[in-house]
């Protein structure tokens, strides 16, 4: 008995569904639902987390992210302009910086600024400053490359039109090229903001006081207190509350850019 190609494809697909159904059924029978529920979603534990997990932890996560993003964006713009400079040493500095900070883990920068600098220079940086610098120094390297690409994507005719109206090179950059470049790089920059939101959890390393807790640290602390995974689950969900709308925004911006072309 021979099977046609189409019949065989149907059989293969049927087997795949079968395996999935069996796996789900086995898991449902074997799993200890009560324990799972207690571990991941203990209502009493969940209640105890509020409102601090919002008013302190979520707020701090957003604060740390924005500090790092703001500083990184400013530095990234400077680096991008240096990278495009007609003065070679500026280009070398920018390239070296970008390659260095893209190549090392952000964690290492946190360690350097959080522990290395206080030990070596006997100055303790303010918490917010440490976070801003650590996230910003690394973020700037990525954003510089993004912004550079954006600036280069602005057609040459724009600069020529600006210059032919008597604008200086700098004025043409500020009034004409950079505003257009930022529209182009808005989606990738928003992606960078998502990455920074997650990286802000690295601040966990620095040993925070209660009022400085952000989501990851808060979750970890509550985990110890309640011996339950619930805080971690809720902290995770709160990250998604930030990152999912941003991801949606990226898609909307990308669609808008695609339409404008």
């Amino acid at each position, binding site marked *: 008995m021979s099977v046609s190609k189409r019949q065989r494809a149907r059989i293969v697909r049927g087997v795949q569904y079968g395996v999935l159904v069996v796996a789900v059924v086995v898991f449902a029978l074997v799993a200890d639902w009560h324990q799972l529920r207690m571990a991941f979603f203990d209502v009493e534990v969940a209640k105890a987390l509020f409102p601090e997990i919002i008013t302190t932890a979520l707020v701090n996560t957003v604060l740390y992210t924005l500090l790092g993003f703001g500083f990184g964006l400013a530095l990234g713009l400077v680096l991008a302009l240096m990278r495009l400079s007609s003065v070679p040493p500026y280009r070398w500095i920018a390239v070296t910086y970008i390659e260095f900070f893209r190549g090392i883990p952000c964690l290492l920068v946190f360690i350097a600024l959080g522990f290395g600098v206080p030990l070596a220079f006997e100055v303790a940086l303010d918490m917010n400053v440490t976070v801003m610098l650590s996230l910003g120094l690394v973020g700037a390297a990525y954003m510089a490359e993004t912004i550079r690409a954006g600036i280069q994507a602005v*057609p040459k*005719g*724009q600069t*020529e*039109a*600006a*210059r*032919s*109206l*008597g*604008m*200086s090179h700098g*004025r043409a950059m500020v*009034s*004409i090229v950079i*505003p*257009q470049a930022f*529209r182009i790089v808005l989606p990738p920059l928003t992606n960078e903001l998502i990455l920074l939101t997650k990286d802000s959890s690295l601040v966990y390393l620095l040993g925070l006081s209660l009022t400085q807790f952000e989501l990851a640290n808060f979750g970890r602390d509550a985990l110890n207190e309640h011996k339950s995974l619930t805080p971690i689950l809720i902290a995770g969900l709160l990250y998604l509350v930030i990152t999912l709308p941003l991801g949606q925004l990226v898609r909307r911006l990308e669609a808008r850019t695609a339409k*404008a072309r």
Partner: protein
Amino acid sequence: MTAETTAPGTADPKAIEVAGLRKSFGELEVLRGIDFSVARGEVVCVIGPSGSGKSTLLRCVNLLEEPSAGRVTVAGTEVTDPDVDIDRVRRRIGMVFQAFNLFPHLNALDNLTIAQRRVLGRDRAEAERIGRANLERVGLSDKAAAYPAQLSGGQQQRVAIARALSMDPELMLFDEPTSALDPELVGDVLAVMRALAQDGMTMLVVTHEMSFAREVADRVVFMDGGVIVEEGTPEQVVGAPQHERTRTFLARVLDPAAAEVGEVVDSGAAGKRVDR
């Protein structure tokens, strides 16, 4: 001022004076010794086959390209003088591009006011008053709030002309201003340019619109291979060309269909349009 080159006795310097102008891109010599001038209030059309260096010549006048050799003087200021402040010179020279080059992030009125405010230091109210007057002049007073993407090609080019006019230029350069336009939109732009010429604006126009050159130009310059082959009144150059190269070119432009069935066209068709 070192840049003043007005010879004693000539009270009225030429709007544009070009002497011994050469321009190379690497190995390729695009302009091979150009001498010509444009008087105040004169309209000069530059015609010639693709690649003959027309755009390069225009761009050397406002230093979008740096000449390799020779002198360019605009309204008495030698722009090829290394000490000259080129931004100051450029604001006196309006330029209109084939691809319009409007600023897409600004609406029509802001396209007209940004350089007035940032370069000439006019305040917003004055810049907008002048901007609106110039939009009116090109027949687009109702489009002040429109963004370039919302305008047709012909409308965009008229806004671009209004943008240049808002700087009160002493002369205007046009680089194939209608070549990127759909045929039915060409007329509006040419009408604006015609009115501008009648108002006495000094204009240097690279164009393939022979009817415009014939009607509006005081003088026509035919370029080929980086040199000026011949120049004169439209009647002389377009009506009774002296050189074989001019005749071949004109035959091709005035009757493209005949040229296609006839001899093989060497360096691209003259009536080409830019893809958008």
